[in-house]
């Protein structure tokens, strides 16, 4: 019984933690970031056709990214709040995904993000924690 209670408590803490992180990332999420997704990613990653299980369409992107395991590398989250280096999304954009054990091709398949576009995404991820604090 004690074990069940502990597990429940841990589960609640995880949910609350996840919710807090989601909320923090929601606050830190700027139009700049969604604009990058909308211009460069959403044609392949949208609600009706979420390539690799990922939609970054407006109103869907945060829920699909923050603390969600990558389908290519289940041990890594797509976005870890406050830690862009631990976020698989960033590795896919920087072409370092194979170095961390991932697979597939660099994203986007057609084209590359500009440096400032990648920076906007990295800043958003790293700022999630700052907002939470």
């Amino acid at each position: 019984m004690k074990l069940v209670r502990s597990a429940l408590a841990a589960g609640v803490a995880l949910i609350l933690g996840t919710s807090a992180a989601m909320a923090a990332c929601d606050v830190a999420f700027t139009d700049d970031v969604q604009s990058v997704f909308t211009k460069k990613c959403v044609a392949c990653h949208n609600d009706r056709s979420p390539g690799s299980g990922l939609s970054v369409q407006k109103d869907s992107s945060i829920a699909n990214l923050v603390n969600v395991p990558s389908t290519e590398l289940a041990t890594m989250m797509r976005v870890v709040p406050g830690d862009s280096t631990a976020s698989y999304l960033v590795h896919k954009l920087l072409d370092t995904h194979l170095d961390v054990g991932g697979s597939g091709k660099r994203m986007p398949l057609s084209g590359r993000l500009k440096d400032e576009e990648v920076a906007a995404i990295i800043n958003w991820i790293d700022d999630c924690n700052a907002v939470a604090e």
Partner: protein
Amino acid sequence: MSSTETSRVSRRGFMKAAGIGAATTALGATTIATAQAQEWDETADVICVGSGGSAFAGAVGALQNGATVIMLEKAPFTGGTTAKSGGGFWIANNHHQAAAGIVDNRDDFLRYCAKVSFPELYRDNDSKTYGLPEASFALLETFYDQGARIIKTLDETGALPSTMAMSWDKKPAPDYHGQIAENKAARGRQTSTRQEDGTEGYGATMIDYFQTYVEDNGGLIYTDHRVTRIIKDETGRVVGLEAETPDGKRTFRANKGVIFGSGGFTQNPEMRTQFLRTPVMGGCAVPTNEGDLILMASEVGVKFGNLNEAWNQQEILEEVLEFSSVPSGVFFLGGDSMIAVNKFGHRMYDEKYVYPERTRSHQTYDQWTGEYPNLYQVMIFDEAARNFGGMLIPEPGSELPSHIITADTLEALEAAIQARFDSLADRIGTYKLDAAFLANLQETITRYNGFAETGKDTDFHRGEAPIDAFFHAVPVDRGLPNPYIAPIADTGPYYAILLAAGTLDTKGGPVYNENGNVVDIHGEPIPGFYVAGNAGASPSGKSYLGGGGTLGLGITFGYLAGEHAAKQA
């Protein structure tokens, strides 16, 4: 995404994904007495439907000729299929060719287009139309005569800066069928969007430029606006559109014309079955390309054409079964020690040739068995091919994606391939490799390995067409006489990927004239009604003329439509 995984989509997105709303939408046409007698929610000179390259070209063409523009996009985002494309646009005799000293002769161009677009009609001794119907030939003439002017204008005005597309070996890109005798210029027609740093951009770059230009010049762009009805007056002139929007139904008056650049019908399974010869399963087209225009235009009485053709492209079978709208199709088959075979274990084509032609092989029908023997195909490669790399080939040592089948022997590979087909039976039915598959495959490999020794593929000319090299860099020099034909190893591991037929999008719809003006069943232009790109009947008929053949035509006729509409009273 595996079938057990879910995507967290918004409620509206879920509703759309589930098709809720689409089934109840009454697509068609409405006739009113006069535009003046109707109450409209908004008005512009030109209304463009869609927001891919063709629709944007229409908008820019209209804006640059003094018209006001509203664009209506069905999806919650702009860009259409263009946004996920490589973004090339194929234009003959363009200013980049001229700057590079490449002469692109009109007659040679027309001869090439006529030959590959309508091979069954082509007559080399008919100097007037090369055997094509006059209306079809006139569109190809217009493409040559106007395309270069239009992309030069777009470049100079900043609406779409461009540059010549270059191969990995620094040569101008060749046409897709450069080996055909009628092709004389063969290189430099493929252009790309020029990024700020001078490098070649992609489809998303094109949309970025176009959208910025349209908005900077007063154009309005509305997403989440699905056009459902064409509104015409009693004279037959198209005067407006009705759209479903987040705020309910809204009507838009078009003083001068409407231009549909709304894509094809790849994502409409019923239309795929009704219109296409190929058993196409889906493709790159964005999910909103469901052939809405075909239903609406039917009620207007337009002439339809080319509905049985598509910009063919192979797909990974399991991927296209998961999502009909795939992130990317199989543009080329990577690897050097690699072959593609059918259910009998036989090769079917030059594996390095362009995607549209490889895909045609899926259409082959066998009257004796009543089957398509090439319906599903198997790409097979060995470990060494992973060092060569290329599309679909996993990096050495990397994790294998789930669609790659692997085994240590050919015997085990055959069993694994069959097991994979069996696992998909609920979606593709029973699909059995022929009893002779393994024996034939071994023979095929022996014969193919002989080609590797001589460097000559006497069955399919692998590596000989100019486009073969364009799509395949040679990162590893094995000292072979033909770098694109390497022997398949005697020992495993071996790998296999299942391939199916798909499209970039379809290329049939309303027939149009030299102004992009849709014609009626008698061939007469319908005032106020224009179409461009994959929404209309492509002037390229059965062919894929070169890299960017889709957008080259779409931009040319989209711009011409905008220009012509803007000049109407």
